[in-house]
C-alpha cells in the first residue's frame, strides 16, 4: 500500500509558475503605481489622527438628533424612495429590450445585427460610465429642479447597470432550451422570450433588486444637485452647521437603505424559490 502511494518528487509540478522577466517587471511597476496612488490620493496617517478630535466634536454636537422637523423630513425621505423606485422600474423596463439587442448570439448573424449589437453596447456603456450625479445635472437643466430630474437620472443609470448585466445573463444561459424551441420551428422572438428570458430570470431579479438598492443610495446624493429628495435637506443642515438635524437625516437614510437591502434580500429568496408558471 505504501509503495502505491509514493511518488517521484522530481516529477511533482511546481506550486507556482515562475514569472518571466517581463512579467516580473510588470508586477513591480504595478506595485510601484499602487504605492504612488496612495501618495497621489493624499493619504496621511497624521491627518487621520489629527482629524479625530474634529470628528468627535461633530458627533458630540450632533447628539441627540433633532426631531423637530421629522414630518417634513419623512416626506422628503419618502420622495427619495419614490424617485428610486420609479427610476429603477423605468430603467429595468427600458434595459430589457436594449439588453436583448446587446447580447451576443440572440440575433441572426448579419452585418445589421452586428451594427445593432455594437450600438446597443455603446449606449449601455455611455449610460453606465457617466456618473448618475452628472446625469442629474443634465436633467436638472432639461426638466428643471425637483424629483423628476432625479428620477430620470436614476432611470438612465439603471439602464446602464441592468442593460449590461441582463445582456451578460442572457449570453450565459444554457443554449439547449433555445435550440429545442428553434428545432420545433419557433421564431427567434418566441425563443428569446420562452427559453432565454426564463432561464436568465434569477439573474434579472438579483440585478434588479441590486439596482433598487443602488438607486436608493444614489437618490440621496442626487438631492445635493437639486434633483429632489432628502439630499438637499442634508446639504442645508450641514451648510448651516445644524448637526443635530444632519444626524437625524443621516440616521433616516441609514434606516431607509437598510430596510431596502433587507427587503431586497427577502424578496430575492422568496421570488427565486417561487412557484412555476
Amino acid at each position, binding site marked *: 500500500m505504501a509503495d502505491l502511494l509514493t511518488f517521484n518528487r522530481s516529477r511533482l509540478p511546481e506550486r507556482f509558475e515562475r514569472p518571466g522577466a517581463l512579467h516580473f517587471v510588470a508586477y513591480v511597476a504595478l506595485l510601484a503605481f499602487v504605492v504612488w496612488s496612495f501618495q497621489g490620493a493624499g493619504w496621511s496617517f497624521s491627518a487621520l489622527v489629527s482629524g479625530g478630535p474634529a470628528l468627535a466634536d461633530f458627533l458630540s454636537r450632533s447628539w441627540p438628533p433633532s426631531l423637530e422637523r421629522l414630518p417634513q423630513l419623512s416626506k422628503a425621505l419618502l420622495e427619495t424612495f419614490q424617485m428610486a423606485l420609479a427610476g429603477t422600474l423605468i430603467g429595468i423596463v427600458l434595459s430589457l429590450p436594449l439588453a436583448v439587442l446587446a447580447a451576443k448570439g440572440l440575433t*441572426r448573424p448579419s452585418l445589421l445585427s452586428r451594427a445593432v449589437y455594437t450600438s446597443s453596447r455603446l449606449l449601455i456603456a455611455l449610460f453606465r460610465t457617466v456618473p448618475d450625479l452628472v446625469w442629474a445635472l443634465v436633467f436638472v437643466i432639461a426638466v428643471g429642479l425637483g424629483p423628476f430630474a432625479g428620477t430620470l437620472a436614476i432611470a438612465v443609470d439603471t439602464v446602464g447597470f441592468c442593460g449590461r448585466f441582463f445582456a451578460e445573463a442572457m449570453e450565459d444561459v*444554457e443554449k*439547449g*432550451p433555445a*435550440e*429545442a*424551441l*428553434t*428545432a*420545433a*420551428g*419557433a*421564431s427567434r*422572438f*418566441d*425563443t428569446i*422570450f*420562452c*427559453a432565454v428570458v*426564463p*432561464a436568465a*430570470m*434569477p439573474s434579472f431579479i438579483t440585478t434588479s433588486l441590486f439596482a433598487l438598492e443602488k438607486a436608493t443610495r444614489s437618490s440621496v446624493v442626487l438631492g445635493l444637485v437639486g434633483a429632489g429628495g432628502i439630499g438637499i435637506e442634508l446639504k442645508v443642515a450641514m451648510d448651516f452647521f445644524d448637526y443635530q438635524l444632519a444626524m437625524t437625516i443621516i440616521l433616516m437614510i441609514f434606516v431607509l437603505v437598510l430596510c431596502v437591502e433587507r427587503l431586497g434580500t427577502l424578496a430575492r429568496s422568496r421570488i427565486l424559490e417561487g*412557484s*412555476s*408558471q
Partner: protein
Amino acid sequence: MAQPLLQSAGAVAPAVPAAHAGTNPLCDLKVEGLCKSFGKDRSVLHGVSFSVGREEAVALIGSNGAGKSTALRCALRLIEPEAGSVLLFGEDISSARQRQLRRVRAEVGFVFQKHNLVPRVSALTNVIHGNLGRAGGMRGWSQLLAATALRDRAMACLDRVGLADQALKRADQLSGGQSQRVAIARALMQQPRMIVADEPVASLDPVAGQEVMDLFRQLTREEGITLLFTSHNVQQALAYSDRVLAIRQGEVVLDENSSGLSAADLGKHYG
C-alpha cells in the same frame, strides 16, 4: 396520426398542408452528401447520405465524435452544413428561407439527450412551447396565457406520457426520466410526422431508458410517427428500430435492416 390526442387540436394547429406531400411520398427524410467541419482541422461529416422512410424507425449508431449528432442537426439545419442537400417531407430545405424552415421544422419533434427543457417554468408550459412553430406569439409563451384548447391539448400530451399529474411542477424539479417524458410530450404537441431523438436515453438509468424507448415504439406503431434516433446501446438500437445506420469518422458505413443484424455486427463499428 389517427389518435384523438393528435386530432383534438385542429382548432389550434392546422392539419398538415397539402403542399407538404413530398415528391417521394414514402420517404420522410433524404439526406445527400452532407459535409460539415468545425474550424480548419475538425472535419466531422464527409458526404453523409441516408434516407428515412415514412413510419420507419431508424437507429443511427457510432462512437463518440463519429458525427451522429452533427448529422441530425445538419438535417434540420440547426447547424448549417457546408455541402449537401436535405429533403424533409419532400421539401428541399437546403436553401430554404427561415419561414419555410420553421414550417417544416414544426413537423419534426426533436428530443435531445439532455431534455433541453426550459428550467423554472412548469412542465405544462414546456409542453405548450411545442406549439410555437405552428402558432407563435405571447399566448404560446406560458400556460398562464394559453388558450383553453391549447392547454387541453398540452394536458393530453402530458397524459400520453403519464405525467398529467405533474403538469404544474417546475421542469428543473423533475427527475431525468420525467424530464425526458416532458420533452417527448413537447414533441407530441407539435403533432409531428417524425421524431428525431439524439441519444434520448443516454442520461437515464436503464429502467427509465427502457420506458422512454417503449414510449417511442408505441408512438411509431400507434400514431404512425417516423422515428430517427441515435444510440450507443446496440441492443437497444436493434430492438427498437427497423433499420440501422452506422456512421464512422463522418461517413455512413452501414445501412441494413435490423432483422438481419446482430449486436456483434454493430459492435464492430465502435472503437
